[in-house]
């Protein structure tokens, strides 16, 4: 835990070297006043309402909220799969126009790997179709990231022979190989069993430690947000609106002002209404 405290203070410092000169700390990704709506067969659904937040370089930014708060929809909009009805999303100051390999998404679903390609070919597919690398150099890069997620032995296996956790590791490797400006993760560990999930969280932290990539991580699990995030955005449901933005050092530290642990504070903020109205809360 001490190590985690140390590493997140480093990440904050990358942005706060020079407090006098604010321009040294440009947000990498800036979401401002974004309202997202989509249509189902019967309804027009407002998923988020005027959500604003900034993601700094090398930050582990977690978007946390109960189901129905539009957190996955935000991620889709950042990835360029849908356009905001209101507000802007900018990456490095440029508005996002459509999907592109500068923002790579890791999905929750295990079927995000192409089943007709081996692990290595899946990673190479990403590099080659996006035009990052070709042939031999793509293969070398693929093997390098596969070894980073400890799957070297399975480089020539097909996805259907892998376990759920391994599939997610391949998806993460494929995304990291692209060296995107920001790595988008949509509840990537939600479909895993508790033990594997815990293990994957540690591995993700370790990978982050090595390359300090910027990651935007969506989850509905408070413990996961506290462990993974350096900064946590809380959204309220129906439609998603910003409730709070908190810092985390990964240790679930006690807040001196309230005397509560971070996870307890988050829990109270997200479920405040239920507590007041006497509805039993659950994790």
């Amino acid at each position, binding site marked *: 835990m001490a190590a985690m405290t140390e590493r997140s203070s480093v990440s904050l410092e990358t942005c706060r070297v020079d407090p006098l000169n604010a321009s040294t700390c440009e947000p990498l990704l800036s979401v401002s006043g974004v309202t997202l709506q989509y249509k189902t067969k019967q309804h027009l659904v407002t998923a988020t309402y005027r959500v604003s937040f900034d993601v700094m370089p090398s930050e582990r930014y977690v978007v946390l909220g109960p189901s129905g708060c539009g957190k996955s929809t935000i991620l889709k909009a950042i990835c360029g*799969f849908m356009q905001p009805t209101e507000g802007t999303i900018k990456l490095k100051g440029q508005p996002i126009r459509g*999907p592109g390999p500068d*923002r*790579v998404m890791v999905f929750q679903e295990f079927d*995000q790997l*192409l089943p*007709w390609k081996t692990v290595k070919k899946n990673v190479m597919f990403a590099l080659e*179709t996006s035009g990052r690398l070709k042939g031999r150099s793509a293969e070398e890069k693929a093997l390098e990231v596969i070894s980073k997620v400890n799957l070297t032995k399975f480089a020539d296996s097909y*996805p*259907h022979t892998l376990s759920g956790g391994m599939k997610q590791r391949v998806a993460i490797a494929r995304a990291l190989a692209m060296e995107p400006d920001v790595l988008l993760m949509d509840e990537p560990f939600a479909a895993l069993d508790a033990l594997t999930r815990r293990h994957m969280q540690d591995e993700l932290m370790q990978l982050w430690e090595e390359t300090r990539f910027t990651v935007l991580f969506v989850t509905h699990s408070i413990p996961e947000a506290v462990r993974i995030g350096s900064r946590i955005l809380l959204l309220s449901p129906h439609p998603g609106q910003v409730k709070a933005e908190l810092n985390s050092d990964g240790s679930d530290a006690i807040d001196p002002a309230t005397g509560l642990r971070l996870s307890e504070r988050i829990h109270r903020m997200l479920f405040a209404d239920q507590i007041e109205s006497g509805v039993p809360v659950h994790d």
Partner: protein
Amino acid sequence: MIDAASPSVAPPPPRPEYIHEGPLNQDFGVVEEPLSLWERLYDNGGFRKTLLLIAIAAIWEIYARQLNNPLLVPTFFETVRAFVSAIASGELPDKAVNSVRLLLQGYALGLALALAFTMLAMMTRIGNDLLETLTSMFNPLPSIALLPLALIWFGLGDNSIIFVLVHAVLWAAALNAHSGFRSVSNTLRMVGRNYGLAGTRFVFKILIPAAFPSILTGLKIGWAFAWRTLIAAELVFGASSGKGGLGWFIYESKNMLDIPSVFAGLFSVILIGLVVENLIFRNLEIATVRKWGMQN
């Protein structure tokens, strides 16, 4: 004893914990043992089917011998003899090659059209409506019913047969490919677009492989339809410029009351169908969708 009807059930008395000390028992005999030869053979589908085929041939032989009327049912061995001699004379292989060549032309053209239709349907909504309307109209129409019309349009010749073959392949292949494309998961689509794929690259790199189980089904159904249609068309008229196919061989043999040869012709129709189904399509299936874990 606890009264089952009583609402307050007493907790069970505390029990001691049990921890096994030392090594675990090793006296359970074998964990893994190879199966006997017969068990392994019988587990093989090919072996079981061969047994069935032998049984069917035996029943046929016995029945034909009892009937003793080669004009109605020749015996199994007579049929085999006629088959072997027709092969030796080169007549049957010739006819089979003619049939297959014609079939491949129609099949290829039908598939190309199916691909064009399906891509149009994937890209525009009106294309989608067009494909749905056309497939629901023409899929139930047996292509052989179009032969009289085709003869008027294209004359007596290969073109008429190719026309009905295209009709036989096109709708089955397009229908399956289309439903396959539509069932490609949203996640895979987003993955493809995330890495910058669009247009035809998206179709060839994501949609076609992801929909391959359905496409393969379409290929198989299209093949089966085309094969049936071809033989039927050749029975109606099969000899253009002196080259007939298998259907023509059957028809001619019947005219000459050479019933064993009729059976031999039917036999080769079945045989070619089986070879394509069990060798070509099956291996294609093993090399693709099974290897990829998309079908068990």
